[in-house]
């Protein structure tokens, strides 16, 4: 527990329940800017859905024009649209770049409101076990930041601890803030 005025903040608590079972992003630091870059493997798994969706929609069109089987065309097209849309929704978070820009003095990502870099107090590494109902459970890790107002914001969330630790150290160095490891033993 950390105390900030009358506010108690549990730095061990995870911010996101779920997380990917692969390395989703790496941190790139260039002069005055640090930003997250999605990995190719992460993008490829999202593209699978878009490709399948597009294929099924094309197949539906072919079936309709070739044999006029409207029911099959609707069935294939419906599945294609659902899978393709799902793929697009999956890929969007990977395309939204989170960045720490010293020239503007701002942290920007697409889901949270901008934070002034001067208001970032510290970075924390947290761990969790993602429980899957129909698959293997797996460990996942978060890099989170704490602001002066007590707000906690997730920066990175994936299951490659060595890469996350290296990126966290790089970012802490870039921002000149404290980095702490809050990984705990999780007993299921």
């Amino acid at each position, binding site marked *: 527990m950390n105390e900030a005025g009358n506010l108690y903040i549990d730095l061990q608590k995870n911010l996101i329940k*779920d997380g990917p079972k692969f390395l989703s992003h790496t941190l790139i630091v260039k002069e005055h800017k640090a930003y997250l870059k999605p990995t190719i493997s992460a993008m490829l798994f*999202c593209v*699978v859905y878009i490709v399948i969706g597009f294929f099924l929609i094309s197949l539906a069109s072919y079936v309709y024009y070739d044999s006029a089987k409207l029911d099959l065309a609707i*069935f294939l097209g419906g599945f294609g649209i659902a899978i393709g849309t799902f793929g697009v929704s999956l890929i969007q978070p990977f395309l939204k770049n989170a960045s720490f820009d010293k020239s503007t003095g701002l942290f920007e990502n697409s889901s949270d409101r901008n934070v002034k870099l001067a208001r970032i107090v510290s970075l924390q590494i947290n761990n969790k*076990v993602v429980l899957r109902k*129909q*698959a293997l*459970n*797996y460990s996942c890790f978060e890099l989170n930041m704490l602001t002066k107002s007590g707000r906690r914001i997730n920066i990175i969330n994936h299951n490659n601890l060595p890469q996350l630790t290296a990126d966290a150290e790089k970012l802490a160095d870039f921002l000149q803030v404290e980095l702490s490891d809050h990984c705990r033993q999780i007993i*299921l």
Partner: protein
Amino acid sequence: MKKIQQLLALMMLAFSANTFAAEGSGFSGVVASLSSAVDGFFNDYTGWFVSLIFKSVPIGGANFPIIVAWLLLAATIFTVYFGFVQFTRVGMSIDIVRGKYTDPNSKDDGEVSHFQALTTALSGTVGLGNIAGVGAALAIGGPGATFWMILCGLLGMASKFCECTLGVKYRTILPSGAVSGGPMYYLSRGFAEKGMGGLGKALAVGFALMCILGSFGGGNMFQANQAHAMLTYAFDVPSEYGVITGVVMAALVFSVIVGGMPSIASVTEKIVPWMAVLYVGMALVVIVANFEQIGAAFTAIFDGAFTGAGVVGGFIGALIQGLKRATFSNEAGVGSAAIAHSAVKTKEPVTEGLVSLLEPFIDTVVICTMTALVITIAGLNSAPFDGAGLTGVTLTAASFTETAEIFKYLLALAVIMFAFSTMISWSYYGLKAWTYLFGEGVTAELTFKIIFCFFVIVGATIQFGAVIDFSDAAIFAMSIFNIIGLYFLMPVVKQELASFVARVYSGEIKRFD
């Protein structure tokens, strides 16, 4: 263990060689040759295995598979040994599911509650076994097979109670943080406690091998095969286009099990229970719409159970089909459910056993009976019951369509979702068995996942035949090793049950109303 990996690779190579050697004209010819090659391959290389597992003894004009008697006997023994736990403790099971023994203030983040575990396991068991399996049972065993399915479901509740309790009790936390449990672990660890570590290890290895084969067969090829059969029935898609269904399903399965995408797994977990609701809803519509025929349907079921009219082997023939399909559907005694249930968060293993015993009841006694009523009411399944006419998923689909044409489309949707979710579940079971044999590691796990996806395509491409026999045999073979273990370890379960019940009555375990 490396030898087993090499053997599997060799099987795939041999199969590929057969396939490419096949001759045919055009796409249909190639696919027909491929189908024939795969069937021939399985017949040549796995026929002995199928014959061994389904070794039969002649009883009353029918060949009674010993494995079916093995499962039935075990379920009966567990029922008696645990004092008819499926009837005497059913109230307690429902209370556990309703959270009456869970402190509402102690719930942690990410906890898998008993109710969640039940819905998860149900969405894994309610699937093609209830749709295609019942269709196959009635096509060969007549309406009377339903009665034996119900009996098997009721007795199987005790088997499931026993195996799921042990699954939680002897589970382990792997270095990755993943919870691992199931027969592999209770056989090796439970037997080690009794000073029979060697036997336990041998049984665990045997179970793991059969579980891997079962995951490729019933948990994969059968699902893909029946998913495409449903498309063929509902939309007149030529059966040779199964390769397209297979490739699309394999790509989606690949993205889930190799990519580890959390979102698709979550979506599947959310959709599948609704598919079960859709299926039950459709069955209820058919039953209610034909309300006046329910009495006659039940008469046909009870008469058929004991006379076996029109069934090869008479009532014994009906009994065999009923028991086989019920086991395939509810998986009681097979050991697979113990793997899924071991991930629950509980300090009391027996609570998970009590929750799990509801599954065969809902799966077989309720849902399979509903399917059987739909088929019997539709009247498309008539004597002689030799499987020559409509069978499997097509018999069920045709029976639903008798009431409303739209049902075949809804059923197609449900079947594809069930097939997909069952493949994901069985990839999990298979992977657990694989990592038990070969250890955790990126290469070992990736090898399994790629082979698994390959079999999705094979399953959707080939016709019913030797492959389905193999699928059946592998799933039933799991029960050989599992049930031997359950016999040795059932005193542990009895002790757990007695302790839990005593603490509930003494007030040590609080009830939260």
